[in-house]
């Protein structure tokens, strides 16, 4: 749920509750004040009645208006203090009943006690309360509507810088791509956030660059010692007094040196791809490069009796021919390396995608892991960087490299 929605919801609920309570208090207060007024009126009325009875020694005539009535009934009751009560008044004319306030008092005339009831209609007051109530409801409605609109439009506007910053964070990449620029804002919080994000981007970027420079230098520095090892070995094997046992050990050292050198070259290549140092992009005919590669591997495929079937269209991409060569080399090399004898490789190339499917182990590989650095099968002789390099080459050109498994085919697909 969005913050604005949440905020709107809470503020509206609070306003509603407060307004309802206020409305209730308002209603009771007005009712109370009105009742007080009636009670005063009725008490005054009673006083006037008593005065009339004192002066004229007779009861006044009972009267009956729509909103004001008085009647007298002789009762055997003793004197009691007047009491005020709520009651109903019915009008003889309209036969409509309305709420009313009454005072009941015992008056004494000629040794007879009379119960005197004076009733006064509260209809007009009720109308007033109703009007006030309606106005209050209307006000609540208006207020809520205003809150809703204000929150929706005002908050959305206020939060705009936040969404810009969020976009920028999402677009952030260590490979040096700069995210969208964020418009200036005069909200302090967002300005601080913006500054913090800028500082973070800069720091992460510079640390990443330092790390890459380190990788590059380390790989370069590695090469000369490996060259020394290899050249010393090359001289050593010339010695005719070496026994077979010695030579077998030298072979192992050679192989380790070879692995180390491949590893260094692969790491360097990764750094260069990340740096986007290959600027020799030209139009490359993928189908020709592919046919070339299949030809280069023909020796190995025929030895393993692997059947390669290709279905290709003419596709051109703008890319570095060197990187395309590496990309195809790694994908096709894997398809052969991890294939069975008498297996199959199916190559499919069209304008949208290139897919290379091969038979091999009957289990699906972990699609998340295989593209990670140094992730390889224990039996593999490779560096564990081949697929990482392939993926990074694809990313550099905005293509997508995916793995899927549909028994018995392991398929790698590049979507251009």
């Amino acid at each position: 749920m969005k913050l604005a929605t949440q905020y709107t919801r809470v503020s509206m609920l609070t306003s509603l509750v407060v307004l309802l309570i206020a409305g209730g208090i308002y209603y009771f207060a007005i009712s109370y004040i009105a009742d007080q007024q009636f009670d005063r009126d009725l008490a005054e009325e009673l006083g006037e009645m008593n005065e009339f009875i004192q002066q004229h020694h007779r009861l006044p005539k009972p009267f009956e208006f729509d909103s004001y009535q008085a009647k007298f009934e002789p009762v055997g009751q003793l004197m009691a203090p007047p009491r005020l009560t709520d009651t109903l008044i019915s009008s003889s004319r309209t036969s409509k009943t309305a709420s009313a306030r009454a005072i009941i008092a015992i008056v004494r005339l000629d040794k007879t006690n009379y119960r005197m009831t004076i009733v006064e209609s509260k209809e007009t007051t009720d109308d007033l309360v109703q009007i006030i109530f309606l106005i209050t409801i209307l006000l609540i409605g208006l207020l809520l509507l205003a809150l809703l609109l204000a929150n929706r439009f005002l908050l959305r506007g206020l939060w705009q810088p936040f969404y810009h910053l969020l976009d920028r964070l999402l677009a952030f990449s260590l490979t040096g791509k700069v995210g969208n620029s964020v418009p200036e804002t005069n909200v302090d919080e967002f300005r601080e956030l913006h500054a913090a994000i800028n500082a973070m981007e800069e720091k992460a970027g510079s640390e990443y660059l330092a790390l890459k420079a380190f990788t590059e230098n380390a790989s370069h520095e590695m090469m000369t010692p490996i060259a020394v090892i290899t050249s010393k070995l090359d001289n050593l094997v010339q010695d005719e007094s070496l026994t077979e046992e010695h030579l077998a050990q030298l072979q192992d050292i050679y192989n380790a040196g070879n692995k180390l050198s491949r590893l260094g070259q692969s790491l360097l290549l990764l750094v260069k791809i990340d740096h986007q140092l290959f600027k020799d992009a030209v139009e490359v005919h993928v189908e020709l490069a592919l046919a070339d590669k299949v030809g280069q591997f023909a020796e190995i495929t025929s030895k393993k009796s692997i059947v390669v079937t290709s279905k290709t269209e003419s596709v051109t991409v703008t890319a570095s021919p060197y990187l395309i060569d590496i990309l195809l080399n790694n994908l096709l090399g894997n398809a052969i390396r991890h294939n069975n004898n008498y297996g199959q490789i199916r190559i499919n190339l069209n304008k949208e995608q290139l897919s290379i499917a091969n038979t091999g182990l009957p289990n699906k590989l972990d699609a998340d892991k295989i593209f990670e650095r140094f992730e390889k099968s224990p039996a593999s002789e490779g560096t564990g960087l081949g697929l990482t390099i392939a993926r990074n080459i694809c990313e550099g050109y905005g293509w997508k490299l995916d793995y899927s498994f549909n028994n018995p085919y392991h398929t790698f697909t590049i979507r251009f």
Partner: protein
Amino acid sequence: MKLLVIEDEPVLLDSISNYFSGDGNICETATNREAAMEKIGLYDYDCILLDIGLPDGSGLDVIRYMKEVGKDEGVLIISARNSLDDKLSGLNLGADDYIVKPFHLAELKARIMAVYRRRAFNGVHMLQYEDIIINLDAMDVRVSEHQVILTRKEYDMLLYFIANKGKVVTRNAIAEHLWGDNIDLAESFDFIYTHIKNLRKKLLDHSGKDYFKAIYGIGYKFN
């Protein structure tokens, strides 16, 4: 053949000069730019091996200097950086070839021989080793006057072995020469065995001489 090796890593320099000396080759060395320029100014060489990363400046300066003083020896650049820019600027300046560390000495020698051959026999690209005569332009191989039909890989291999005649050439070096990084070593060793078996037989059929000697577990020697 007279060689000048310019390389700042003394151990590597020692290995190279050790491998190249003998067999009628003279190998001189320099460990920095100044010494290199001095030697180039004083003597003539058949081929110069030049490391780009020298302690007192870029090896490319040496090539520029050679141009200035009108020397046109064959130059083979050695670099620790497999960088296209370095390679292009080196070749544009007039270097003949470019090799990236680490390399096998056999590979280095084959490259140097190729540079030397290109320069030494102007226009006449023939190579002879005992009764094997190779026309490098037509890629035509004759043994004792008989034409021998070789596959592309057998032909490459023959040139490689002739360049490293009398030396033990490891299977690792051959694998890298023929396939680069494109193949698993174990697989390549099988192929090398097959190719050498075929090449050996083809040469043996016509010359009656077995040129190849297998060195157990590590490689072959061509004699």
